[in-house]
Structures are given as C-alpha cells and as structure tokens.
C-alpha cells in the first residue's frame, strides 16, 4: 500500500513540474554564441512594448534578464498588461530565432519571434502603505519641526544666529 502511495505521489509530482524546454533569459545572454541563429523558447513577463509600424519590440523579463523580442504588431497587441511598479505584466512564451548581434537591428541582442503566445494575463499589485513606516515618518517630521522651532527659540534667547531657516526667508 505504502509503495502504491509513493508511486502515485511521484507521478503527481512529475505532472506538477513545468516543461523545461524554455531557455532562461540569463542562459541566453551568457551563452549567446551557442544559441546564435538557433530557434529558442523564452518565457517571461512583458516589461515593455514599443510598436514600430507593422512590427513591435516586446521586452520580456526572465530570471533578472530582459530580452527584446521583435514580433508582429498584431502579436504585441495581445499583451494587455505591461509590468511596472503597480503591475505584474502578462506572461508570454516566445518561440523564435535568437541573435546575439542582430545584423538587421544594429547589433542588438534580440529574438525574432515566429510564435508569440500570451500564457497568463498580468495583474495589478496592491501597494498599501506600511503602517509602521507611516507612523515613523509622522513622528520624525513632527520631531524635525519641533527641533527647528526649539532651536530657533534657543537662538533668540542666546542671540545666536542659526543659518536656517532665517537665511531662506
């Protein structure tokens, strides 16, 4: 019985592991010569779309490395969310030819997409202020204002001149 459970668990785990056919951005950049002019697969988050007529550049971020993908403008239009501070961009899969110094694009490192698929839609990231940080900032600002006025009073008492804020007024 225990053996059967173990066997089933292994099978389940195998199904849960994603396919490993895609190259990571870092792998592509660090082994550029090896992958040059070969068809590669890149999966990652869209962090930029720049449309140029019928074509477009889609910058895809994977494993801390972003790579420019040259694709059809219609493919780029499939991207609904671009990654930034308040968004996680769409996850896309690109199958295309990798160039470490593309002759068509002034020596840029790029992938010319043959197949462009949006795997998952991006989402909004809620960025709520941290209560502790807000409190700390309020206390420090209050302290700064208090110190400015306290020192001003001291200065008046001792007839000392502190350059700020008088010199600004």
């Amino acid at each position, binding site marked *: 019985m225990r053996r059967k459970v173990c066997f089933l668990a292994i099978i389940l785990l195998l199904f849960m592991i994603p396919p490993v056919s895609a190259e990571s951005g870092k792998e592509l950049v660090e082994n550029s010569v090896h992958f040059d002019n070969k068809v590669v697969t890149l999966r990652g988050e869209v962090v930029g779309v720049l449309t140029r007529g019928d074509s477009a550049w889609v*910058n895809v971020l994977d494993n*801390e490395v972003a790579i420019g993908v040259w694709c059809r403008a219609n493919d780029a239009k499939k991207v609904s969310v671009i990654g930034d*501070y308040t968004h996680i961009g769409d996850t896309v899969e690109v199958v295309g030819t990798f160039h470490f*110094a593309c*002759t068509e694009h002034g*020596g840029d490192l790029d992938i010319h997409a043959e197949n462009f698929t949006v795997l998952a839609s991006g989402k909004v990231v809620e*960025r709520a202020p941290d209560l502790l940080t807000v409190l700390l*900032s309020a206390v*420090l600002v209050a302290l700064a204002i208090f110190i400015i006025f306290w020192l001003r009073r001291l200065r008046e008492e001792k007839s000392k001149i502190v*350059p700020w804020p008088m010199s600004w007024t």
Partner: protein
Amino acid sequence: MIPAVTREDLKIIGYNLGKICYVTGAVLFLPIIVAVIYSEFDTIPYFLIGSAIAFILGCLISHFLYTKKEMELKHAVCMAALAWLLAPILASVPILLSNATASGLDACFESVSGFTGTGLTLTLDIDHLSHSINFLRHFLQFFGDGIGIIVVSLSILGKTEMSSVLAFKGETKDMGMRPSIVRTSRMIIKIAVTFLIIGTILFTVAGIKAGLDPGTAVFDGLNHSMTGYATGGFSTHSQNLLYYHSVWVEVAAIVVMVIGAINFNLHYVVLGGRRREILKNIEVRVLLFMLLTFGLLVSANLLFTNFYTSGEALFRKCVFHVISAQTTTGFQTVSPSHFMLLWPVFSMVLLSAAMVIGGSANSTSGGIKMLRVGVLLKSFWGDVKRALLPKTAVVRGSFHNIEDTPLTDTVIKGAAMITISYLILFSVGTAITAAHGYGLEDSMFETSSALGNVGLSCGITSPSMPAMLKVTYMFLMWAGKLEIMAVFVLFGFVILCLRKGIKK
C-alpha cells in the same frame, strides 16, 4: 610644521556640513511630487523619513557647532570630502526603506554611485521600481554630479565670498565664469537646467519615435536627460538604453553625453557668443582626437573579429560605447556579460583607457580629464623638441583653454600629480578586483568604470558581489569624484587629529 587640529577647526567643518544636510533634506522632498503624480502614496513615508533625518541632523549640527569663523582651504577641502560621504548616506535612507536594494550597504552604494555620477547599480528589479524611487536615483546624479551639492549650497545658503571660493575648490569646480562665486554657482545651475530642458526634449521626441507612449517618453526623457547631462548613466530600465532598440534614442544620448563632458566655462563663453572657442579649446581637440582614435580602433577590432559586421552596428555598439566611456557617462546598449565573455580583450582595454582619461575639467565627467592629458602631451612634445633643437634654443609651450595659458612647470607638476594618483588607485582597485577571482581585463574595466565615475559594467557589479568589492568601488567612486587630492587631505587631517590630538 603643521599646526595641531583645534576644536574650532572641527566646528568650522561641522557647521558647514550642516548646510549640506539641509540641502540633501530638501532634495529628498522632490520625489514626493513624482509619487503623488503616479499615485505611489506608499513611497511617500520613505522620503519623509529621509528628509526629516537630514533636517534634524542639519539643525543639530548647525546649532551645536555654530561658529562665525571663516573656512580656510583645509576646512573647505575636508568639508567637501565629508559632504560627498554624508549626503549619499542620508539619501540612501529612502532607497533602503523601499527595498530597492538587498541591504543597507547596497543602498549606500547606489546612493554614492548616484551622487558621484557613476551609474554602477545594485538596484534589484529596476523594471518594477516605483517612479518616485527611480526619479530619486536619476535626480541624485543630476543634483550631485550635474550641478554639485556645494554649488547648490552656495547658491541658496551662500554665506561669504571667501568660504564659498574655497568650498568650490574643494568640490573640484574651478571658478572664473563670473566675478562672484555665488553668481558663478547660479550660472552653473542655469547652464545645467538649459541643457536639461534640451535633453528632455531630444529624448522625449526620440522615445515617441521609438514607440513609447507620450507619458512614458517624457518621464524616461527627463530621467535620461538628467543622467546624460550629469554623465551618470543610470537608466529607468534594466536593459539600460537597449530597452528602446532605437538609433534615435542613442543619437540623443550621444548629444547629451558630449554636452555634459564639456567644460562649464566653455559652455558659458560659447553661449555668450564666442563660438570659435569650441575648435580652439585644447580639451575639445583632445576629446575629438580620443573619440576618433578609440572609436576607429574599437570598431576595427570588432569588425575584424566578425563580431559586428554592418556599419550601423559598428556605430551603435562600438562608437556609442567609446563616447559613453570617454564622456564617463555609462549608458549601455550591450549586455554586461557580453563585455566580459565576448568582447575582445583589446577593445576592453581601450574602453578602460577611455574611462580613465575621462572628459573635460570643470564638467560633469570624471577621470583624469582632457586638460591634464593635453597638458602632459604638450609637455612631452616640448621635451622631444628640446632634445632635437640646439642647446641655445628656447622652447616655450602654451595651451588654449578659454584663454592662452603658458605651460609652466607648476601646471605640468599639478597634472602629473593627479594622473599618477589616479593610476596608483587604478592599479590598487584592479588588484583588489582580480584578487576576488575576476580576469585582469574585466578587473581593469570595472575599476576604471568606478574610479572614472563612468558606470559601464562588464557584470562584476551586482548585488551578489563580495562586500569588500562593494566598499572598494564606493571608495573609488568617492575618490574619483573628488579628484583624489581632497581624500588625501582628509586622511592627513584625521592622522593629524590622532597623532597630535585636538587642541582647544
């Protein structure tokens, strides 16, 4: 005999550092406007905390170290050296609180890199960084290197002419444009703002042409204009300028980088109508000669190794990076690991040489500076002539930098001193980097980038690099910005305190 350090000396330095705290505190307020525009309200407390700490520190220092005494040269130089440490530490607070970097040391590194206009970065996930923190990174370069902390302090809080002149020298910005130092400071700010506007327009138009939406184009344009003019090199994207895949953005960058690498005094006289001065100036001539020589050599090297074969690629990858290195900007359109793994050693060494030489004196760029290189070349040529001419012949040298200046032994000695100091620090930095297991040419490349306040990276600079290297590069960036001598004066001052104590 050098007199012992007195309490009054420390008060004079401390009191003037208080002003720097005020200015840094005010600078940390600016990104709040960006945070409001982009509804990034969660980031506002970070800037308030940083700003409040700076103001509190400034108030306390100014009050308890209050003095009416004027600065002497030693105070001014020590104050400038310490200001370039204090301001980055204060500005690193919002960067640290926003978790933009992995640690406090990394936040300090980022801030030092910003203030000194270097551009080496340890920021994590730049593509998901908030607009406000991104703006802060770029503004630090414009404010710190593009204008100068002390210049700003003088313009706003300028106290007396004597103190101002000395502080100005401490920050390695020579006076001479206007009779009054405060007016000179204001003129530097005016020139910087004028070119900032021009640069923003250029980058925005190029960005829109590259396919950006107008809002992003303006934001990116403003930030890149700030870092381009400051010859800093920070970018709003992890790919740096490669993000745009656009020759127009790169051309806009070249224009702004070259403007930033030219002497403020030259800008002033040219804007005043003396346009012929551009071609007569020794620094412009050396800059053009270097760009042409290095550009041709790097292009030829990469062409013959079949790395880049088209004319466009040679311009966009070879010439662009030579200009970026020579002007000490650090804008990059090649992946850092390509520099380390694929570029030929010869090209890497040439780029390192360009970074060590740097741009013009009294400009936003770093490095040894064109003026010193020009002076040394002229002096070398003079010695060759002297050897060839009869004994009775008198060889007189001069160079043209706004006005004709005789090539005296004092001028040559000054240029040689700084050059030798740079080369010593460069060797030490390279040795420390190589000791961490990196190749010699990569170590030379990254060290010259840090020391020359450039920012081009072959991938050594990353959050995972050893703490010892981070500290070494921070020191090199700081020493490079201060043109080394101020650092030695500060060390001398500290040694004097330790050996002779502090007298009343």
